[in-house]
């Protein structure tokens, strides 16, 4: 079986196809193609998307050696590479901050890098060198466990569309400045920022994901926002701040997002939203809002219930609703205002598009059951309602069911599914 007598199948394909194939290989295999034949010696050197991770080097148990191997591999690779580099991704669990990384960033900043992603090990956080801020062509930036210190002359990443910062040490003013100085920003993810009071100015922002201990979130200028996912953790400081707050958070947060299509709120988000709800008004309707998911809603707090109610009544085209009760308390029987529902919303209001409802972590409290009753009576096209009791509730399930069965249903096709086993 002599290769010389058979026609070479692949080496003469256009370079763009070869590069596509090489980019779909792990980078180690891509480099190895240099030993295939004379035509393949340099094909790997022009690939533009580079993805490095711990699998690039053969494993061994000695960590310093492994670190050296990886550093050596990447350094040599960059040294032998030819042409522009569009994407550079590094994800490693044992490489820490080192001067080599600074040099790589300097190198990349000169090669027109567009997509940069760095996630280093858990130890000392990587302190980004100032050359990072000279990468003017960046469209995607993702940093994990990093210290960012933008230089005073920094004017922003003018092409940046996607920004993902996780566990970043950065002066709070700089964060707001960074976001507002990226005019094309479409997607923003901020995770584990502590104690941040965030005011967002991002006229093109479409997707927002926030997770952490935020003091305050104000969407000042985000008219194009389509999807939002917020997970707010609470500390004592933040709880105090909530109590002292005088403004209406509902308006502050949801006041300027008319194009919103999907909202996901977790942990203390509903609590946050409920602050100052009495003093606010609801001027806008969310005509595009189709999916609402609110978790850890405390039905005992009437303000929170009011916030939920106000939100769903302002969304005439709502299709899917998922509400979860607080996951860490057992049923609390609290006598309260039973006329609450009729008082707070117009009796003839109908959810004309609501098809799917999921209520989880139900403890069977009065307000929870009132909420379910309300939904069943006002959703004429409802198809499925799934109710999952909280794992902490064992004896109250029968009475829950008894109540459920009594509720009137506006929709004749509605299936009410009571889930017995936890999935």
């Amino acid at each position: 079986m002599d290769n010389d007598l058979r026609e070479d199948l692949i080496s003469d394909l256009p370079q763009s196809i070869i590069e596509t194939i090489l980019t779909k290989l792990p980078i180690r295999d891509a480099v190895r193609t240099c030993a295939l034949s004379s035509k393949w010696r340099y094909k790997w050197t022009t690939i533009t998307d580079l993805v490095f991770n711990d699998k690039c080097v053969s494993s061994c148990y000695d960590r310093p050696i492994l670190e050296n191997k990886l550093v050596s591999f990447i350094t040599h690779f960059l040294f032998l590479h030819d042409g522009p580099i569009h994407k550079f991704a590094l994800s490693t669990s044992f490489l820490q901050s080192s001067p080599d990384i600074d040099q790589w960033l300097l190198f990349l900043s000169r090669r027109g890098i567009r997509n940069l992603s760095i996630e280093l090990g858990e130890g000392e956080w990587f302190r980004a060198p100032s050359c990072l801020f000279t990468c003017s062509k960046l469209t995607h930036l993702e940093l994990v466990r990093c210290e960012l210190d933008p230089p005073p002359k920094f004017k922003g990443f003018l092409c940046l569309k996607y920004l993902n910062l996780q566990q970043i040490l950065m002066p709070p003013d700089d964060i707001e400045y960074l976001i507002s100085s990226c005019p094309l920003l479409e997607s923003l993810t901020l995770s584990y920022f502590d104690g941040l009071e965030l005011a967002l100015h991002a006229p093109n922002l479409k997707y927002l994901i926030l997770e952490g201990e935020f003091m305050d979130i104000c969407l000042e200028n985000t008219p194009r926002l389509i999807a939002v996912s917020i997970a707010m953790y609470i500390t004592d400081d933040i709880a105090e701040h909530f109590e002292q707050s005088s403004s209406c958070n509902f308006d502050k947060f949801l006041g300027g997002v008319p194009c919103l299509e999907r909202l996901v709120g977790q942990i203390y988000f509903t609590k946050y939203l409920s602050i100052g709800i009495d003093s606010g008004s609801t001027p806008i309707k969310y005509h595009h809002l189709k999916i609402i998911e609110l978790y850890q809603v405390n039905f005992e707090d009437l303000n929170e219930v009011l916030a939920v109610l106000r939100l769903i009544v302002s969304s005439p085209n709502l299709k899917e609703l998922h509400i979860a009760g607080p996951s860490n308390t057992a049923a609390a029987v609290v006598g309260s205002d039973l006329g609450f529902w009729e008082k707070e919303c117009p009796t003839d209001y109908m959810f004309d598009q609501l098809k799917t409802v999921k209520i989880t972590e139900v403890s069977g409290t009065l307000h929870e059951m009132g909420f379910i009753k309300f939904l069943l009576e006002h959703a004429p096209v409802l198809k499925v309602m799934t109710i999952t009791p909280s794992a902490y509730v064992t004896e109250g399930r029968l009475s829950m069911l008894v109540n459920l069965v009594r509720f009137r249903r506006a929709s004749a096709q509605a299936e009410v599914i009571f889930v017995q086993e936890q999935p």
Partner: protein
Amino acid sequence: MAEADREIIKPEMMKSYIWLQTSDGSLQQVEQEVAVFCPWICHEIHSGMGSSKTYPISLPSRVSPAMLSLILDYCRFHQVPGRSNKERKSFDEKFIRMDTKRLCELTSAADSLQLKPLVDLTSRALARMIEGKTPEEIRDIFHLPDDLTEEEKLEPIKNTIDDPRIRLLNRLYARKRKELKERERLKNVEIEEERVDERSVEDLLSFINGGDAESKVVKTSKTKKKNRRRKEPQKNTPGNDTSTSNSTSLSSNAVHIDKQESNGLDSTCHDAAACDHLLSDPGNPSKLPYIEEGFSPDDEFDDIDPAMQEKIDKEVADFARRLNSDWPEILSLGQERRRIPTAINCNGSLKRYASSASLAP
């Protein structure tokens, strides 16, 4: 009556068709909605081509009729909007199952029609074929020539001479090496150690350091070269003089190049003894022991079995006889043959043949 006629007309007849022509001249009629899935064809239609048989769209040369048929199958499935992602994925998995040659041709054809989703699909399949395989396996799958020198394989980016003659010799050398490997495998039970793919990528790129791993591999390759050169001429001694001298001239050239390479690698070689032996061998052909008489196999060739030994003895005797009879012709022959007379002159024991020749009538 007219109404009945109108009712008979089926809806399919209302679909528009366009005409495509492949590089071999054959024409094909295709539903427009299927063909416009390819951006290139779509562009051509907007330029006004393809609406009739006399003005068909001439497809790029990389699109053969067989490839066109495959591409149209792909388009016909995917242009239907109602399909689920699962369905599409399942179709793609089945569609991709074909031999390597067709896969490469399909990639090329799809690229020329700018059908990016299909290029991505086929590229991914080709990448899956390359991933995790040894260079030999990859060369076998795609019929790549093994035309890199050992040096180039070990030090991939070093700027060696790009001489096509050297490339040809490397290929022949590689082929020979493969044949010998086969014979070795048949003879020995132990598996011969793979050379190239054991080298990790970081070693490939750390040639600047000239580390231990490198010299170790260099050493192994040198020892192998040494063995091989001995076996080559041994294999070639049967048969007539022409073939012998031609192959020895070939191996002498290969040896010559080895010497060049080994000179280059000398600086990194730690085993001086091996180097010396390597360098001294080509210069002293008299060392070729199989021409000598009184050659004892145990000294240098311990791995020769008795049956082989007998054969060698027979060949030696045969060769000696031929030498005796053809002596004058050998002396007058060209450069390639010079080795044999010089061998005889340098080696004392062979003079016996020369003298006996002169004594013979």
